């Protein structure tokens, strides 16, 4: 049964979406819509639907922008964060949410990612991280694990992968988190906090691509891949109470780093004020 949220927040005429059966992207798109819905409904977080702009790049992930019934802009490959920076600086009242993929934001768009993080401009970047280029048919991406197979790594991937959440932290992001498809409730909560955070936030959401990554690497079908997430991705609260042995082979999801660095558009507002005072002297 489709939830009411779908009727409320999706461009229903354009569904069903183009993603493969078992793809995790629909779940992440639903998480984003739910997070926004909860913020709109909550009297403590006054905002309405027109305050949100969805910006995406190119790839499987980025088709989500077209399905979400908001102001949405589906841009060029890797450049969503550049467009989003312009939108946010032009109108800082807007909540600007970037939907992107591992290749889109950390390969072709890697430079824009680290510089937006460094500036700490108030964007919420949600990475649909499926470890592969899905739209072009399964080539290795910057997050494909070393040794894994892809159509362009038929003998195994020689590259070492990025951890995008840590990359963002290293580049100065004031909010960096990890979510996944299986832990939808936790991921919705993380996305909400990312949107509310005044500064650059990134949520690296582990997606699943059974069609290319899963099949090439014998990870089983979508259900198997979700089971792997259930067993190996652990919410922060639980992870902190686990012993070293229990943590072996597991990864934490939740907020990984948080800071209250000054936010770019707020700092620029001070520049405007200072320049106008100086002019009046």
């Amino acid at each position, binding site marked *: 049964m489709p939830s009411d949220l779908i009727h409320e927040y999706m461009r229903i005429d354009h569904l069903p979406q183009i993603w493969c059966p078992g793809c995790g992207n629909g779940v992440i798109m639903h998480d984003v819509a739910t997070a926004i819905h909860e913020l709109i409904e909550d009297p403590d977080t006054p905002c309405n639907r027109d305050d949100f702009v969805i910006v995406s790049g190119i790839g499987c992930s980025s088709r989500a922008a077209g399905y979400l019934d908001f102001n949405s802009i589906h841009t060029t490959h890797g450049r969503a964060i550049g467009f989003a920076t312009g939108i946010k*600086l032009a109108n800082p009242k807007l909540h600007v949410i970037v939907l992107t993929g591992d290749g889109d934001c950390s390969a072709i768009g890697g430079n824009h990612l680290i*510089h937006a993080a460094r500036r700490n401009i108030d964007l919420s970047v949600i990475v649909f991280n499926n470890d592969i280029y899905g739209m072009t048919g399964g080539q290795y991406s910057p997050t494909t694990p070393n040794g894994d197979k892809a159509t362009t790594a038929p003998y195994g991937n020689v590259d070492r992968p990025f951890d995008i959440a840590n990359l963002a932290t290293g580049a100065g992001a004031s909010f960096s988190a990890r979510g996944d498809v299986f832990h939808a409730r936790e991921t919705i909560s993380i996305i909400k906090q990312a949107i509310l955070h005044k500064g650059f936030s990134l949520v690296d959401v582990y997606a699943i691509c059974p069609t290319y990554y899963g099949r090439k690497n014998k990870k089983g079908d979508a259900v198997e891949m979700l089971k792997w997430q259930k067993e190996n991705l652990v919410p922060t609260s639980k992870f902190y109470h686990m012993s070293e042995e229990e943590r072996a082979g597991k990864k934490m999801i939740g907020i990984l780093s948080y800071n209250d660095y000054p936010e770019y558009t707020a700092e620029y507002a001070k*520049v405007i004020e200072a320049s106008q005072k100086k002019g009046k002297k």
Partner: protein
Amino acid sequence: MSKAVLMQGNEAVVEGAIAAGFRFFAGYPITPSTEIAEQSALRLPQVGGKFIQMEDEIASIAAVLGASAAGMKAMTATSGPGFSLMQENIGYGVMAEIPCVIVDVQRAGPSTGLATSPAQGDYMQAKWGTHGDHPVIAISPASVLECYTLIIRAFNLSEKYRTPVIFLMDEIVGHMREGVELPNPNDLIINPRKMSFHDGANKQCYYVPEGEFIPAMKPFGQGERYNITGLAHDESGFPVNSNEIADKLVTRLLEKVEKNVDKICRIEEYAMDDAETAIVCFGGTTRAVMSAVLKARAEGKKVGMFRPITVWPFPEAQLRERLPQLKKILMVEHNHGQMLQEVQRTVGGKLPVDFLGCVDGTVISPDAILNKLNEMEGKRHAK
């Protein structure tokens, strides 16, 4: 007219743009355009605008398009190498119909070339730099005053036709300093952007009424919800895989410029009334050509200057009108023959078209032009 001020071409661009309503700049430093970024950083916050230095030119044009989608008149400035980096997103701006102005202060290339030397080697890039079939409007100023007045026109055209406009400068004009009397702000014509959908659009952001070519959109965050994409899209802005819709869209994009070419194309003519030889030039070459025309006239030669101000689309109708009176044409430009191809295409073999160019980073002097005219004369006598 106000009293004269000493100004540089690059500075005049910023002041003119601000008068046109420019309030957002994103850019990356590159010689010889950098003063435009520096002046924007200084001046924009004073008028409530925003400046941001991005990590590269790709991000710069992306931020400019984003800011424009959010309702601000936006501009970036660069030179050849940076202009090349911007090309993909310029095509996006064309396809998604997002107004903006891209200033290219040309320098000698290819590649890093002679980074501080003048050239006009991006003429063809301005038209064909991005991929696919697309319209381009490009304007080329020849003086500091024109940097001011024509950048206003660049913004006006961009807003009116909802397409990126290229402001094709060169090092000569960008770094030229001269006294200018700026027009009275009250005398300026400024096109505001239509900030709502067309009547009857029914939330279709790319809806265009019958017989018109240009959609109208409300900026993001002002109470409408719609999708923008660089994929072929229908009137709702949603991607479609329909050959028919793609054809209709690309045809309309081309026609919005082609069908208005008489309104878009502007030229300057000098001593053309009885001219038998026309020297065609644009931008930074203009001063030398005017000087050569004066000297040639003093020698009794019937020489005039034909200068496209709108360099894309090439003002072929205006040039064609002059052909019956002309015996020959000399194209003078700081490259190896780029606008020359447009002139030859327009002339269609009816007249001899000669060429004087340079790619060594120097400037073409009036004497070099006179020598070329004499050489052409000699060739003719030798027949």
